[in-house]
């Protein structure tokens, strides 16, 4: 095992984090140094990532680990580590490349923001944490970075802190993902309890290797539960149903943030997590079907279809993309669930590029339209913003899955292929086919609204973005196209790389039934979109320009979708109302029941104190006064814990120590 590079992996997360700290220490006016520092940190991470990637090419299924002891308690040691394998290396490369493009784009996009330096500090911090996440070799280390990216996401969604909606969205994102993380944490504890280690790979004794899996395999039900608990974390982070509600709201953050965190990298962490601990999910399965993987499939299917449907009826350019992200993440989950791990990861990587491209494109549109985000107010931008239009169209075609030249098409095909052969049920396959049509449909709708037709309110004074913003767009568009070279069935290099197999060139595999099927599906979606929205934004006798054609035809259905299937309202009425009621109940209990109890105790203490006082009065020396004071102090302590007297606190400590001694005596 060649571990030369793996010992030098730590700077990948460390350097962007250090850059973040350095930027934080700069004054608000040092904009240029902040941007330069952030970009240098990112370039550095990209450089090491490339080295790491190249060294994984040496052998098939390259895997190098470096573990170290974090601390020792008793005879247990807690060990963390880094791992380098094709999965980690590919993710590293994607994240640092997309991250770099987005950093450069942000220089233009955020140029007029007064908190420019703070933005870059957060962005670097996020990048460091995310890069650390993918190379973690311990579930605990992964969890640490997982929470750090959650924190970065929180900070960046709420970046425009003066907007109440941004603050609310940040809170919503943080709390919603925390629900999932709770499950993740419980799963981690249970896993540790079962296997005694949280390292993934440890020379044969890690929890994903034969010894650890054998220990878990003793009770497959428990292993399934652990896998599902860990999956809870992935549901929260990747915006899967039922915890998807935070992701569209997260679009309150600056657009580069949406591109980097809520489209390309962080939300993919959930998919990555499932792929990383895949042996746990597939443990004890027959034909690759286990109950936990079945749950993953159905959650993915639900999410993918639901989000695609909602996306059709949204008017905010970023929200459409957000729902499309949710839908694509669902698709990846389906792929993982049916056993197509490599296909899911390939789609994750390709999606990272083209979704970042789409988001940055939308950022460029918003920038050009002076902050307008409603697609019904745009239109005709293809003449005013040619570079943005061309790159956006490339991203749109990659997302819709137009075959041959766009990376998204091949990965989507691969996923459909994997889904088709799932032994348990064919329903996910057909639902996914419907999802492909829907994807093409809503992207067509969006692009017609934004770039075609006559110009409307917001697009009249639109202008093309500066070079610093268009260059990353072009770079990402080139990536989105050229990435397809390693994805084609004729030369499936990436697939082979991820699975650790030699790659073969075979032109015959290029033409498959699936290719025609997806051509038909995408054609249907595009055609349907063009037909439905041919008059979008055009005023005619029956309908004003602001009314969506679908809304005109099917008002009830449209309202149902436009209001996000009322899931937010449902949560508001049930979960949030319940916790509000619980809070009220606790408040009432606190006010009347517990307080009464405490007062009762206080009264007992006071009675006791009065008793001792009366005894004291017949006592002899002044010391007895002390006892009374002490007892009265005790009585006060019972009614109000905070006496303000340090000696009381100290005495409480000593009593606590006594209690421990007593416990020790009692336990023998």
């Amino acid at each position: 095992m060649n571990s030369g590079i793996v010992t030098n992996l730590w700077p990948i997360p460390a350097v962007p984090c250090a850059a973040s700290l350095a930027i934080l220490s700069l004054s608000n006016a040092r904009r240029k140094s902040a941007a330069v520092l952030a970009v240098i940190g990112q370039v550095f991470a990209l450089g090491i990532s490339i080295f790491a990637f190249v060294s994984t090419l040496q052998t098939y299924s390259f895997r190098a680990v470096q573990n170290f002891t974090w601390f020792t308690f008793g005879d247990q040691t807690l060990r963390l580590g880094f791992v380098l394998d094709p999965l980690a290396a590919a993710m590293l490369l994607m994240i640092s490349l997309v991250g770099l493009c987005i950093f450069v784009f942000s220089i233009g996009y955020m140029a007029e923001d007064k908190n420019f330096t703070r933005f870059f500090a957060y962005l670097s911090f996020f990048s460091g944490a995310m890069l650390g996440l993918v190379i973690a070799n311990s579930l605990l280390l992964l969890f640490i970075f997982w929470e750090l990216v959650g924190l970065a996401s929180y900070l960046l969604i709420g970046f425009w802190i003066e907007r109440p909606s941004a603050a609310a969205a940040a809170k919503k994102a943080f709390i919603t993902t925390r629900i999932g993380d709770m499950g993740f944490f419980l799963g981690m504890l249970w896993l540790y309890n079962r296997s005694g280690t949280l390292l993934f790979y440890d020379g044969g004794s890690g929890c994903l290797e034969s010894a650890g899996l054998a220990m878990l395999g003793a009770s497959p039900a428990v292993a399934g539960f652990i896998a599902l608990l860990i999956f809870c974390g992935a549901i929260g982070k990747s915006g899967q149903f039922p915890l998807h509600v935070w992701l569209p709201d997260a679009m309150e953050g600056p657009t580069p943030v949406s591109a980097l965190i809520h489209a390309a990298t962080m939300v993919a962490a959930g998919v990555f997590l499932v792929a990383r601990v895949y042996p746990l999910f597939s443990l004890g399965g027959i034909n690759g079907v286990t109950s936990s993987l079945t749950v993953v499939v159905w959650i993915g299917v639900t999410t993918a279809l639901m989000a695609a449907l909602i996306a059709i009826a949204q008017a905010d350019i970023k929200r459409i993309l957000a729902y499309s992200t949710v839908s694509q993440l669902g698709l990846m989950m389906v792929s993982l669930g049916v056993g197509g791990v490599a296909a899911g990861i390939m789609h994750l990587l390709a999606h990272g590029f083209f979704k970042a491209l789409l988001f940055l494109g939308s950022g460029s549109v918003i920038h050009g339209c002076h902050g307008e985000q409603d697609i019904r107010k745009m239109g005709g931008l293809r003449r005013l913003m040619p570079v943005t239009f061309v790159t956006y169209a490339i991203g749109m075609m990659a997302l819709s899955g137009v075959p041959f030249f766009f990376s998204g098409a091949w990965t989507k095909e691969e996923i459909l292929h994997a889904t088709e052969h799932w032994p348990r049920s064919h329903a996910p396959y057909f639902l996914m086919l419907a999802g492909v049509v829907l994807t093409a449909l809503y992207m067509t709708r969006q692009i017609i609204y934004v770039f075609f037709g006559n110009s409307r309110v917001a697009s009249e004074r639109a202008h093309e973005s500066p070079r610093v913003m268009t260059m990353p767009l072009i770079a990402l568009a080139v990536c989105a196209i050229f990435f397809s070279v390693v994805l084609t069935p004729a030369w499936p290099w990436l697939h082979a790389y991820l699975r650790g197999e030699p790659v073969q060139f075979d032109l015959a595999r290029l033409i498959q039934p699936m290719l025609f099927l997806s051509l038909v599906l995408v054609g249907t979606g595009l055609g349907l979109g063009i037909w439905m929205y041919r008059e979008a934004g055009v005023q005619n006798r029956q309908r004003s320009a602001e009314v969506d054609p679908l809304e005109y035809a099917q008002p009830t259905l449209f309202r149902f979708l436009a209001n996000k299937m009322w899931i937010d309202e449902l949560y508001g009425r049930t979960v949030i109302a319940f916790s509000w009621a619980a809070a009220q109940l606790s408040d009432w209990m606190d006010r009347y029941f517990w307080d009464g109890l405490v007062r009762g105790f206080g009264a007992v203490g006071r009675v006791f104190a009065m008793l001792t006082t009366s005894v004291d009065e017949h006592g002899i020396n002044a010391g007895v006064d002390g006892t009374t004071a002490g007892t009265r102090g005790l009585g006060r302590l019972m009614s109000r814990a905070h006496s303000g007297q340090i000696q009381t606190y100290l005495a409480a400590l000593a009593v606590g120590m006594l209690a421990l001694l007593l416990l020790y005596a009692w336990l023998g």
Partner: protein
Amino acid sequence: MNGAAFIVISILTLAAALAAATLRKLMHAALSFAVAFVGIAAFFFLLGAEFVGLALVFIYIGAVAVLIVFTILLTRRDIEKDRGFNWSGVIIAVALFCGLTWSILKTPSLSIVAPHIRALTVKRIGEALMTSYVWPLQCIGLLLTAALIGALVLVMEEKR
């Protein structure tokens, strides 16, 4: 290890400590405090940790006890009012002592006599300080500096 010396030192130390805790006059208590620390240093000598014992003498009797005396002098006006004594503290302290003694006596593996060891020279301590404990040493240095500055800031005259 000498049994007689041990008995003498422990009686001296505990008596001085008790005096330091209970004497009415603050100045007497501070002096007893110094004597108690002489006793503890003697324990360290008895146990073969001469360097630590000397450090204890220097730091506690040379510095801390003097600081305490200074503080007493600087807050003199208040001393006359110090009459209170809290008896609940006695109960807690005695209970804790009984508990600790009980648990110590209950553990048979503690009734061992000292083995013969190589004398602990200052050279060995210095080596350890400069090799395996060099980081803690630097941290302690930083801490002491911070404490020094902090103490100065605390007692500086407030500017009005």
